[in-house]
């Protein structure tokens, strides 16, 4: 196991390095610069600025300097938000995205599982269709439309929730719904289809013939065996959700990290682009790694091939 983790870790470092290099190249290929402004600045001021941020040096030197600082754990300072360090910017905004993201993940796993199980247990019956229609309607309304609608209806008209911000627990409700509506449907459908398959598998039939009740079968046997794809899906859902959603953060005025994915590029804020890329990649790699481990735990077959036969 330790060797497995170590080799995974080495690979993560390698991919990070490749990623950093690719992003660095791509970012510098984009027209525009972090130091441009609409009003013309004198050539001299422009030069002073470039010298200040080291942009006057050849790209390869800039790249070297960046790597050197990175190894020391220094992500640099933003070129747009004067003297704010990139690591602090990411940390303080990630706090919000993480909280909202966790809330959305828990919601989607719970709601998605309920819908999926109901649909599978009543396969081809009314409840199956109903559960799927509910799930798919949630999926079919883009958050672009859902978020402002929720906001207008529940915050402006009914005044049940706040329009914006993330100050109290109630403030999580609307953004969580908007954020989770897609994943709920995805999990419900995934769970439904694998579970229908599992319910038709021999071991379930055996369990049925032994006289176990439908509920016990579903909870004890079928669910565990149907969780595999959901766990894989959670691997990247987690990364996607906790790193924030631009639309939902923007509409609900949440100071999360999502906006930086757009803002860093529009500002050509090089250190921030790099920082966000590295941060996102690490989160993604780690969550996928955890999902891999979880997969091993959930899937007995994987354990057999993993050398722990004889369970």
């Amino acid at each position: 196991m330790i060797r497995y983790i170590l080799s995974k870790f080495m690979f993560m470092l390698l991919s990070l390095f490749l990623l950093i290099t690719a992003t660095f190249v791509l970012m510098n290929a984009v027209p525009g610069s972090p130091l441009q402004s609409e009003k013309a600045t004198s050539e001299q001021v422009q030069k002073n600025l470039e010298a200040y941020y080291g942009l006057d040096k050849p790209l390869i030197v800039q790249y070297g300097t960046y790597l050197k600082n990175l190894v020391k754990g220094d992500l640099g300072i933003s070129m747009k938000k004067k003297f704010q360090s990139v690591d602090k910017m990411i940390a303080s905004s990630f706090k919000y995205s993480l909280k909202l993201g966790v809330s959305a993940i828990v919601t989607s796993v719970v709601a998605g599982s309920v819908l999926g199980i109901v649909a599978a247990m009543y396969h081809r019956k009314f409840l199956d269709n109903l559960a799927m229609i509910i799930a798919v309607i949630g999926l079919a309304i883009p958050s672009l439309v859902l978020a402002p609608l929720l906001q207008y209806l529940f915050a402006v008209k009914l005044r049940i929730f706040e329009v914006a911000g993330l100050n109290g627990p109630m403030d999580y409700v609307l953004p969580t719904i908007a954020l989770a509506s897609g994943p709920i449907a995805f999990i419900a459908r995934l769970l439904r289809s694998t579970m229908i398959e599992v319910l038709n598998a021999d071991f379930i039939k055996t369990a049925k013939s032994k006289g176990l009740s439908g509920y016990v079968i579903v909870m004890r046997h079928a669910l565990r065996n149907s969780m595999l794809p959901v766990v894989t899906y959670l691997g990247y859902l987690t990364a996607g959700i906790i790193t924030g959603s631009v639309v939902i953060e923007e509409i609900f005025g949440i100071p999360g990290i999502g906006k930086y994915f757009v803002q860093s590029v529009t500002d050509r804020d090089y250190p921030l682009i790099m920082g966000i890329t590295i941060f996102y990649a690490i989160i993604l790699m780690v969550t996928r790694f955890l999902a891999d481990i979880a997969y091993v735990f959930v899937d007995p077959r994987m354990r057999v091939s993993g050398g722990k036969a004889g369970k």
Partner: protein
Amino acid sequence: MEGSFKKPVQFMLVLVLAFGMLLTACSGNNNKPANDEGGAGGGDGKAQEFRFTLASEPPSLDPATMTDAQSSIVAAGLYEGLTRLNTDGEPEPAIAKEWKVSEDGKTYTFTLRDDVKWSNGEAVTAEDFVYSWKRTLDPETASDYAYMLYYIENAEKINSGEITDTDQLGVKALDEHTLEVKLYTPAPYFISLVSHYTYLPVNKTAVDGKPEWASEAKTIVSNGPFLLKEWAHEDKLVLEKNPDYYNASAINFDKVTITLINDTNTVYNLFETDKIDWIGAQAGSVPTDLTPQLVADKKAVITPVASTYYYLFNTTKAPFNNAKIRKAFAMTVDRQALIDNVTKANQQPAFALVPPSIAGVEGKSYREMYPDTDYFQENIEEAQKLLAEGLAESNMKALPEITLLYNTDDAHKAIAEAIVDMWRKNLNVEVKLANQEWGTFLESRKAGQFDIARSGWGADFNHPINFTYDLIHPLSGNNDGKYNNPEVAKLLDESLLTTDIKAGMDKIAAAEKIAFADDMGALPLYYYTTVTMVKPGIENVVSDYAGHLDWVFGSKK
């Protein structure tokens, strides 16, 4: 079998529980201070709080590196300079009690108040200004707006590194409370200019050797009516009244909360639910579609702003190197229809570049003295004739493919779509639309890679030179259409050297007239307005002449 199944479920359960606990823990922590705040604000009726939003957080609160409206709105409360512009855009004494100007208009001597204090307890002295200006001009500081100081003797040379001895800068502290400034050219508007944030003083103790001093609330040392209590980056700024401000009795707000929210509809919904007291003037904007109704219901008001919306012609290449073709395009835009149906905020049609809220002399505005409607009028028939003549002059049978470039934005898009349709109907010309994201757009526009490009210009200071020299002088870095008429250049240069304000303005107006009546160097569309909404009870909070929120001296009943 049973055993092997149990664990994963437990594992999942533990995960879910852990997530749940983390969540409640996080939100629990977060919740408490919010509640306390709510209690304190609601229970005590006397504390005056003013709340508004900004679309993005100030990139900098360091006077040397500030460049944008967001920063300047916050800085107006935090810092105090030599003068302050009143709501009409006229300079009034602030730290400078009075000032004297020499005969040649090149030397200004400011007498400073002796009761102004920094938030760290030190006194504000003339030396602080000298230090601040030298620091801004120091190439090491890499200030974007350093050129605002170029009026001062040797400023440009210091900024370019040509002079390394900063003591040669034309500014001196004669004593603790007397500041002498030498200019390289008479600039009659220098008193307005020193109200600009680039001219603000900074506290040497707080700033020296700490370039990051202005990026956190706890390290900022300021001297203005308000102190920065909290700066939660990307979330909000909280300002509180400065009890040691020399003119504290003029300040009524005890607390000012600035939330950073970009989405226009969200800002409007916050206003609707009484979470903010103000929208407009660069502090949030009223959704365009709602504006006419809100104005009709008297819920919103429209104020003119010293900014101009115009299109640039690329005058260096066909077809817009021909003045007649340029005129044809400019004369076939129905500006009033555009304003009534697209921009909807009662903007004023523009036939030149200097906006109506820019001051002239003797209490008249510049535009009242020199009406731009004299320059040209919309006229479709005339335009069609001019287009035909222009084509003949340039030896063309038909227009080449023309692209209108604008930066990505819903409002710009709607305007461009409407105008392209007017040209299609009035000139039978098909103009293509292209939008680029801001950074790319700026680069294309600077490099002249366009036929027609969107542009807008806002005032840095209240003088027509700011809209003429900067935009139609061939040497200006902002003249991206490369309009070049030596006569215009000559008139503008002369206006800079004139000490008589009226004579200077005459020359500016003469240049402007040539640029639009004869040459149509650019395509003016409209003078901006800003739509503002304010909660009842809030007074003296306004949009200033430049269309920036001016809240510092406001009060709440």
